[in-house]
C-alpha cells in the first residue's frame, strides 16, 4: 500500500476551507491542514471532534484544590496547631485564597504541559511543511493517497477547482 502524501498549497483561507470540505465529502483521508493562524470553521471542515483538553484542565485543577485543602488543614490543625488570634484550628474560610491560587496554578501549568506532550511538540523537532510558507501566508492541505477511491487526476482536478497554486507528492510525515 502506498503511503505517499498529496500536498496542495492554497493562497486564500476560503479556498483551503472549501477544498477541505470537498475532499472530506469525497471520502478522501485528510492527514492535516497547515496554516499560519487558527482558521475558524476548519475544524468542522476537517471533521475534528471537540477537544477533551478542558477535562484534563478540570481534573488537574480539582487535584490541586483537593490536595492543598487537605494540606492546609493538616498543617494548621494536625501537624503543628498554632493559636493565631484565637481562630479555630481548621479556619476553612481563611484557606480559600490559597486553594484558589493553587487550583489555577495546577490547572494552568498542567494543561499547557499536557498540550505540549499530547501535541508531540518538543525542542529540535523538524517542521515538515515549513518550505511551503505555511507559517507565513500559505495554506497546505495534505491528503493520503490510499484507498480504492483515490483517483489522482480526479483529486487534482478537485483541488484546482479551489485555486490550488501548487500540488506535489511527498513522503509520509512522521
Amino acid at each position, binding site marked *: 500500500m502506498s503511503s505517499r502524501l498529496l500536498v496542495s498549497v492554497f493562497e486564500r483561507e476560503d479556498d483551503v476551507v472549501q477544498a477541505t470540505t470537498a475532499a472530506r465529502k469525497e471520502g478522501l483521508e485528510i492527514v492535516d491542514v497547515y496554516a499560519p493562524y487558527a482558521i475558524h470553521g476548519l475544524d468542522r471542515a476537517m471533521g475534528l471532534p471537540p477537544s477533551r483538553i478542558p477535562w484534563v484542565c478540570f481534573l488537574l485543577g480539582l487535584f490541586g484544590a483537593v490536595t492543598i485543602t487537605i494540606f492546609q488543614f493538616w498543617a494548621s490543625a494536625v501537624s503543628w496547631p498554632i493559636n493565631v488570634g484565637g481562630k479555630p484550628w481548621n479556619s476553612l474560610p*481563611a484557606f480559600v*485564597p490559597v486553594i484558589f491560587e493553587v487550583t489555577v496554578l495546577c490547572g*494552568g501549568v498542567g494543561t499547557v504541559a499536557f498540550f505540549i506532550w499530547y501535541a508531540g511538540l518538543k525542542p529540535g523537532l523538524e517542521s515538515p511543511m*515549513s518550505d511551503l510558507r*505555511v*507559517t507565513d*501566508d500559505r495554506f497546505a492541505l495534505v491528503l493520503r493517497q490510499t484507498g480504492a477511491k483515490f483517483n489522482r487526476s480526479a483529486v487534482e482536478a478537485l483541488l484546482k477547482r479551489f485555486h490550488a497554486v501548487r500540488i506535489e507528492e511527498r513522503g509520509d510525515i512522521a
Partner: protein
Amino acid sequence: MAEAAVIAVPLIGGNKSAADVTRDVAGALDATPSPLWWGGLALSSAALLLGTIAIGYEFATGIGTWGLNRTVGWAFDITNFVFWIGIGHAGTLISAILFLLRQRWRTSVNRAAEAMTLFAVMCAALFPLIHMGRPWLFFWMAPYPNSRGSLWINFRSPLVWDFFAISTYFTISAIFWYVGLIPDLATIRDREPGTRRSKIFGFLSLGWSGSFRTWHRYEVVYLLLAALGTPLVLSVHTIVSMDFATGVVPGWHTTIFPPYFVAGAIFSGMAMVLTLMLVARKTMRLEHYITQRHVDAMCSLVILTSGLVGLAYGTEFFIAYYSGSPYEQFAFYNRATGPLAWGYYIMVVCNVLIPQLYWLGAIRRNLVIVFIISLFINLGMWFERFIIIVASLQRDFLPSAWSDYRPTSIEIATFVGTLGLFFTCFLLFCRFVPVIAIAEIKGVLRPAHGSHPAHDSYSGYSEDISPEHH
C-alpha cells in the same frame, strides 16, 4: 460622521496581507536600532545600575537604611510593590478578559501588554523580598518540610496568600505569554533558515509546524488559560488589598478595598499600556497596527476605571462620616488636610479630573496629549498607594505615637532601579521578540465570519476609510 458608525473599520490599517504582517513585525527585529532606542537603553540601564547598587547596600546593611519608624512601618517599598503589581494587571486584562469578551482589537497590543505584566511583576516582587530583611531566606515562605519541627507557614495570613497569589500570577502570565509566542517563533524560524536567530527560535518553537490538528488544541488551551487568568488577575489585587483590609488601621480596615484596588490596578495598568504603546508605535513604525481605534478603546477603559476609582474615593469619605467612628473620620480628615494633603490632591487631580479629558475626541486624536495624560495617571496612581499607606499609618489611634515619614536616598534609588529594570526589559523585548502577535493579527485581517456588523463596528474616526471611499 454619523454614517461612519455603520461601516466596520478594519482593525489593521494599510490593507495588509498576511505576508506583509510577517515582514513588518519580523522585519522590525532586523532593523538597526534607532538612536532613540539606544538613548532609552542607556538611560534605563543606568537607572538599573543605580538600583542594583542600592539593593546591594540594603542587603549588606539591612532595612535600617530606609526611613521607616515604629509608627510608619510600611511606606515607600510597599507603595512601589502595589504600584508595580497594579500596572501588571492591564496586561492580563487585555490578554485574558478582553479575549473572553471577544474584543478583537486586543490582538495588536496583547503581546506587549503581557510582556509589560511580566516585567512589572518582577519589579513588584523585589520589594517584599527586600523588606523581608534577610532576602536569602525567602524560601521560608513556601510550605516545605524543614528542620524547625516542621514549622508550617500561617495559612491564615494575607501575606502568605499574597505569596501564593504573586507566584501563581507570575507563572501563569509567563506561560500564557510563551504559549502565545510559539506560532510566531516558528514564523521567524522559517523566515530565515540557517541563521542563529532561526536556530534559537526553532528550539523555542518546539517544532511548531502550523498543523491544524495542533492549532485546534492550541485554541482550546489558549481559551482555558484566558478563563483561568481572568479570575486570577482579579484575585491578585483582591489579595493585595487584603494585606491592608485585614488590619485594624483606620483608612485600611474597609470592605471596599478589593474592588477599589482591582479598578485602580486596571486604571494604572491601562495608563502604562498607553504610555508604552504610544512610544512603541512611533519608534517601531507600527502605525497601521496600533490605530486610532486602539487608542480610543484604551482611553474608554481609562475613563471607566477612572470613574470607578473616583467613586471609591467618594465612598470612602462617605463611609468614614457615616460610620460614626472618630478614628475612621479622623483618618480621612487627615488625608485631606494633614501633612500629606498635597499628595492627596495630586492623586485626586491626576486620577479623577485629568482622565476626563479623554472624553474629548480632539484630545484622543492628539497622541502627544494622550501620552502626557497617561504619565499623569501613572503619577497619580503612585500617589494613591502612597497616601493610602503612609497617610493612614502616620497618625493612627494615639497622638503620642504619631510620626512622620520621609524616604531616604536609598529608597528612592531602589524605586528608580525598578523603573530601570522595567524599561530595560521592555526595550530588550522590543528588540528581540516580535512585539505584535503575528499569528493573531493574521486572523483578524478580515472581518469575523458571521459576525453581525454591530459587534464589530467602530464609531470613531478613520482617515483612510470613510463613507465617501466606499
